């Protein structure tokens, strides 16, 4: 089999599963589960075969024409290179374990058919983004991903919260995608092609304003999908979906699609655009870390930490590319430093954030859908394995030296920040401390101390389908930081293009990470106390807590904007519509036609003989016209 066939099979396996589930298994939960899991296993198996046997590591591109609209040619195709291979592995690997987790987690859900069908649709769309070789195809799958995310956030269709959250996610993403689409159109106008391979040859880093605007418009899509400021508001609400969905879509893969997209189109971004991109990432990272302190819901805390880590990745991309521009040979391959920095963090983040979400899912499952961390406490006795793996996740995200994956990946980002943008470096270092602090808060309150509620007392360890993915992902999040452990074909980016600090910088980074993580985790234990019932910061220093809880009033501002500006504009447009379109145009034409109809009805007598005579007169008229009798009349 050639590479193209295998890639098609990888892409189509989940679509096939989703189609079969839709047709046959909507009411048969076990069948739906089996199909979906089989599709995920196929993806993982085929992609592993790809890495170890089939693919020789060189960029592979294949495409065929789909349709041609005038000069615009739309094609479907695959582009497999170092970047997409790594992303394919992340999606396939994390996706498979989350599928397995879902089997255990969703075992009492009545709508499992719909759930697993949606999961497979999601895998299909996500793989489409990963493999796409041109921007239009990417956009199509980008929208499909948004759709499947909408469907899965709204899985608990009976709750108002889920309905609102799915709607919000969809609409906020639309805002970003609007800019994204305009950006794609601009790319097509400027370069005349949307194929990634073709663009890479044509694009040059001319710092003109058109190219900068183009990059920033494309970045709008990333703002929406990767939930960067100011379009971050949907992600925390999206936690209304089932926990495996939060893990797969809203932590490990879909939200990372934005970062992946940046890496895929790195050659389109100018220095100015990269500066803006990095600052967006830095601000998102800091703000989200602050907001995490104001949350009590375990999944919301993790959601804000996801936001923060995504900010790191975006900032890492921006500053890594700048680092490549300034410190590399100035063009071409040196720009891979941005991809290396962001993708390394994306990969480790996918492991440990999926682990953390699945761990929280295990906890929620055991505590009968209790999500408030202050109602938990003391879980380490009841659920030792979950606690242990969760601790591995916390260590990984905090970046404890040598045993936390984020230690290595975050170091790279901090290093490029130090080399290119010192204020950003300070902020990101502070954020690293905050990260360790809020994750420590979550861990000490929920898992240590004594149980704070009945549901926590009755908690018990989850079944193997839930625990096994936790263990696997825990191993990955400890080992994922060691670039040398990646297989040859997968690790090209991670091994060659992650910017590493040398000499004194190396020591500095080590010290910073160690201090930030250890101090953060330690401080969390001191400040919040093991298994405490209330938030001690809220008790002692209410303004600080209120500051974090306010989320800087983004939701309020958006709601006010919609109510005050958008609704009024819509009312006005609707008034115009009623007056002119439906009033004058539609009803006016209808009235004219009606009058004509009343006249025409008179000649319809219902008698065939009358119609024949009408026909006869028409015939005479025609004869007169043909014979030229009417020429005199018509010429006047």
């Amino acid at each position, binding site marked *: 089999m050639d590479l193209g066939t295998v890639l098609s099979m990888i892409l189509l396996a989940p679509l096939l599963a989703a189609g079969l589930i839709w047709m046959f298994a909507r009411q048969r939960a076990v069948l739906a589960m089996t199909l979906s899991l089989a599709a995920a296993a196929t993806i993982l198996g085929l992609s592993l075969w790809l890495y170890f046997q089939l693919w020789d590591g060189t960029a592979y591109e294949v495409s065929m024409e789909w349709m041609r609209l005038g000069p615009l040619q739309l094609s479907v195709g695959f582009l497999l290179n170092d970047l997409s291979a790594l992303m394919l592995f992340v999606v396939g690997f994390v996706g498979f374990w989350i599928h397995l987790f879902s089997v255990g987690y969703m075992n009492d859900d009545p709508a499992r058919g719909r759930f697993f069908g949606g999961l497979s649709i999601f895998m299909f769309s996500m793989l489409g983004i990963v493999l796409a070789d041109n921007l239009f195809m990417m956009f199509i799958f980008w929208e499909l991903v948004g759709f499947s995310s909408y469907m899965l956030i709204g899985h608990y269709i009976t709750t108002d919260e889920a309905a609102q959250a799915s709607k919000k996610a969809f609409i906020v993403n639309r805002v970003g995608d609007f800019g994204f689409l305009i950006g794609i159109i601009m790319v097509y106008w400027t370069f005349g092609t949307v194929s990634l391979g073709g663009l890479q040859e044509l694009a040059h880093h001319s710092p003109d304003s058109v190219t900068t605007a183009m990059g920033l418009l494309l970045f709008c899509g990333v703002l929406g999908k990767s939930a960067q400021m100011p379009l971050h508001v949907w992600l925390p609400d999206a936690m209304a979906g089932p926990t495996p969905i939060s893990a797969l879509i809203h932590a490990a893969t879909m939200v990372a699609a934005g970062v992946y997209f940046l890496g895929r189109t790195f050659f389109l971004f100018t220095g100015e655009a990269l500066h803006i991109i990095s600052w967006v990432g830095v601000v998102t990272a800091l703000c989200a870390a602050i907001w995490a302190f104001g949350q009590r819901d375990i999944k919301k805390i993790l959601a804000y930490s996801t936001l923060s880590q995504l900010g790191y990745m975006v900032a890492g991309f921006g500053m890594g590319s700048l680092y490549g521009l300034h410190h590399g040979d100035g063009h071409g391959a040196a720009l891979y430093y941005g991809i290396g920095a962001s993708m390394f963090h994306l990969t480790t983040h996918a492991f440990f954030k999926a682990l953390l979400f699945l761990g929280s899912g295990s906890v929620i499952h055991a505590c009968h859908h209790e999500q408030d961390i202050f109602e938990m406490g003391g879980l380490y006795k009841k659920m030792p394995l979950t606690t242990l793996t969760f601790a591995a996740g916390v260590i990984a995200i905090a970046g404890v030296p040598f045993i936390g994956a984020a230690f290595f990946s975050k170091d790279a980002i901090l290093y490029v920040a130090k080399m290119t943008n010192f204020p950003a470096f300070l902020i990101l270092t502070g954020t690293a401390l905050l990260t360790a602090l809020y994750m420590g808060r979550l861990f000490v309150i929920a898992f240590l101390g004594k149980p704070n509620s009945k549901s926590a007392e009755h908690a018990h360890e989850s079944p193997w389908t839930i625990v096994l993915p936790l263990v696997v992902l825990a191993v990955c999040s400890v080992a994922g930081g060691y670039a040398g452990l990646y297989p040859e074909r997968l690790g090209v980016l991670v091994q060659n293009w992650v910017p590493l600090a040398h000499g004194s910088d190396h020591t500095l980074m080590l010290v910073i990470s160690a201090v930030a993580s250890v101090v953060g985790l330690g401080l969390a234990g001191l400040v919040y106390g093991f298994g405490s019932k209330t938030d001690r910061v809220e008790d002692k220093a209410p303004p600080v807590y209120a500051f974090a809880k306010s989320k800087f009033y983004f939701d309020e501002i958006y709601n006010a904007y919609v109510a005050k500006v958008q609704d009024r504009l819509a009312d006005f447009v609707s008034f115009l519509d009623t007056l002119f379109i439906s009033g004058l145009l539609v009803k006016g034409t209808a009235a004219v036609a009606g009058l004509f109809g009343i006249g025409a009805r008179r000649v319809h007598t219902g008698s065939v003989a009358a119609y024949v005579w009408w026909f006869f007169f028409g015939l*005479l008229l025609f*004869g007169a016209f043909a014979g030229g009798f009417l020429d005199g009349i018509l010429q006047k």
Partner: protein
Amino acid sequence: MKEILFHFFAALTLLPAFFVATSRKPVNAAMNMLVSFVGLSALFVLLETYFLAILQVLVYAGAIIVLFLFIIMLIDPHKSPAPSLLRFLASIAAFALMVLTGYFLVYGPEAGPYAQLAAEAPASLSRSFGVALFTRYMLPFQITGFMLLIAMIGVIVVSRKDPATDGGEA
């Protein structure tokens, strides 16, 4: 020779046609129409369009007339009453007016000049029909096929006994 044949076949077409228009029994009308169609196809032969001549006999004389006769047998209508004098006169007047207009259009001072007959007519070959139908007129040809299908379905639907409406009246 050709002139005599033309006049003969024109008469063979027009006289039975006239009887169709004036007969009051449907069976007589159908038989006269059959003769008229045969005369018409003979005119086609004079025009060297042999393929269409055969088709005319097959489809009109063969299929359509038989269908008419079959329906006449099925519903067995009575002889129609004679038309009222006023209507008779009006119809004759309309006919006369039409023939006069037609005569003026064809033979009048404004008419012509007419194209003269070319020496040979390659269009008469049924082969060129086939080529035209399957190359340039492929789409209309297929649409016509669909139209026949639709007509068939329509006939079945229209002539089906509807239990809801017919049951009560029968």
